[in-house]
């Protein structure tokens, strides 16, 4: 037998056996079993939410969520969209998050450029001012801002509440003000890794500060900006507290906070709520799956210095 089959392995590359041997080592197997178990445990709640959202309430209230389905449908998704106007809340989120991300990135990148590239006095103080600000608990600043926004009048065309409170402006400015700190920290770390010679050559050529920032430094930061933008978008999208406190008109709520309203309206029907949760989670999950590399880069840019 062995002699007969002996010529055959000649065609398979000599490198084939090692991986197989490695895969069969009990240690490796244990690691895989462990990682697979943990992964499945991490996925399970999400899958459960999707599963629950596809099943009618009568069925799950009788048999529980952990049962075999008799009927699966997208009815709840349709209901969540039509009855609670989720589209409107999505648009509200975009009204807040798009300018929020762009402004935060623009201002933060300039501050980061100034503290890391220009030899200014007080750079460290400035950097600390922003970084530490981002680390404060949100609840510490909520009360005075609530009072402040109630006292800032805005013309009717900017806010139908006539004050900054209960307007998108309030949420946008808090998002930008609060997130600038993190962006400055990350971008300053990134800009430090860029070669200083490029700037020095430009300075010799008489480039202005704006040119040094906009034409020379910023283009080099494109990967960092993409990563940070992705991350910031999911954070602003996921935010719950700011809109809850600064917006009182339910129609102006962004999607994440609006989910709470959906719960109030249909508090008994968990399957509808599951559909709502999946709808709310879907954009960030898609962003994550499509831009995974950017997303992770954004998080880790700040933590490991180049």
């Amino acid at each position, binding site marked *: 037998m062995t002699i007969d089959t002996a010529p055959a392995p000649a065609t398979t590359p000599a490198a084939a056996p090692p991986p197989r041997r490695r895969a069969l080592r009990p240690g*490796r197997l244990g690691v895989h079993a462990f*990682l697979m178990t*943990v*992964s499945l445990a991490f*996925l399970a709640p*999400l899958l*459960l939410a999707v599963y629950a959202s596809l099943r009618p309430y009568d069925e799950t209230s009788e048999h529980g*969520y952990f049962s075999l389905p008799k009927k699966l449908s997208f009815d709840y998704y349709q209901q969540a969209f039509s009855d609670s106007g989720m589209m409107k809340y999505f648009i509200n989120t975009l009204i807040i998050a798009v300018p929020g991300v762009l402004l935060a990135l623009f*201002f*933060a990148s*300039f*501050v980061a450029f100034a503290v890391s590239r220009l*030899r200014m006095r007080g750079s*460290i103080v400035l950097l*600390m001012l*922003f*970084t530490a600000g*981002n*680390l*404060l*608990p949100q*609840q*510490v*600043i*909520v*009360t*005075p*801002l*609530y009072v402040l926004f109630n006292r800032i009048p805005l013309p009717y065309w900017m806010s139908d509440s006539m004050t900054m409170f209960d307007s998108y402006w309030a949420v946008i*400015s808090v998002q930008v*003000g*609060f997130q*600038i700190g993190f962006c400055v920290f990350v971008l300053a770390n990134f800009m430090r890794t860029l070669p200083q010679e490029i700037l*020095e050559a430009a*300075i010799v050529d008489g480039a*202005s*500060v*704006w040119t040094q920032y906009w034409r020379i430094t910023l283009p080099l930061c494109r990967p960092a900006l993409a990563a940070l933008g992705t991350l910031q978008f999911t954070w602003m999208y*996921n935010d*719950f*507290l700011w809109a809850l406190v600064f917006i009182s008109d339910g129609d102006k709520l962004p999607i*994440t906070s609006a*989910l709470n309203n959906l*719960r109030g309206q249909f508090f008994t029907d*968990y399957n509808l709520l*599951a559909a709502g*949760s999946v709808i*709310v*989670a879907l954009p*960030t*999950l898609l*962003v994550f799956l499509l831009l995974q590399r950017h*997303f*992770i880069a954004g*998080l*880790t840019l*700040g*933590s*490991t*210095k180049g």
Partner: protein
Amino acid sequence: MSTPRRAARRGPRRFTRRDLAVLGVLLGIPILLDVAIVWGPTLASIVLSFTSWDGIGDIHWVGTKNYENLFTNYPQFWPAARHNLLWLAFLGLIATPFGLLLAVLIDRGVRFSRFYQSTLYMPVVLSLAVVGFIAQLVFSRDQGALNAILADTENPTDWLGDPDLNIWMILLAAAWRHTGYVMILYLAGLKAVDPSLKEAAAIDGASERQTFFRVVFPTLRPVNVIVGVITVIEALRAFDIVYAVNKGRNGLELLSVLVTDNIIGEASRIGFGSAIAVVLLLVSMGFVVTYLVQEIRGEKNR
């Protein structure tokens, strides 16, 4: 080395008037925003915590009365503070080391590591509000998946309704998100570790465990610092998830919830709410200052 020094000596003359205008506006706006949105309100919170203000009438100075009431006369305070500490301990002692363990296992280059990495990381992109709702699907008393798995139909456990139990379930849900976050930070840190360090340790006859704890782990110091700060901040900021489950009542009290309740509730006790916020601030400042001192030291060594 000579070029930067020369640039520094050239000092103020480096900037033209137009440069100064650009700097003034583009540094001025973010600084103004940071002061108006973050630092000003922080100071205002501290000041207001010594008043009995209700947000409408005159501001009356009451000294430390809010704090006295808070510590002696406000039954929710100590449970909330305990829950925040428990949160910190749970994330710091269980979720964070677990995240590190997962990162180390994945970093050894096992097959399917991308799948593991993505799956474990996925909960991080979810809003904590959504995590709260998903927790309800899993833990709800009558129809929840957990009771179904346990086949606990006779006398079902009310995982989220029982004030002795629910905080643990919420901690599990919060850890679900925190673990992935920590894992990704450590994975990035581990990738940056110079492989020749490990090789040298292996040649010297160090076991895998020794190599990790004596050689690799110490080089992860910057990541450890970041992870520590994130863990503390997350534990003190925790809010969305309990608020989404039951508005932070019945066993799920947290300091952040008490602040929110006191300012947006009908009572609107702004002075009192600020005092709770200041307590939160003091605890987090302890950690933030430690972190900043380290950062400044690093900055000077650059």
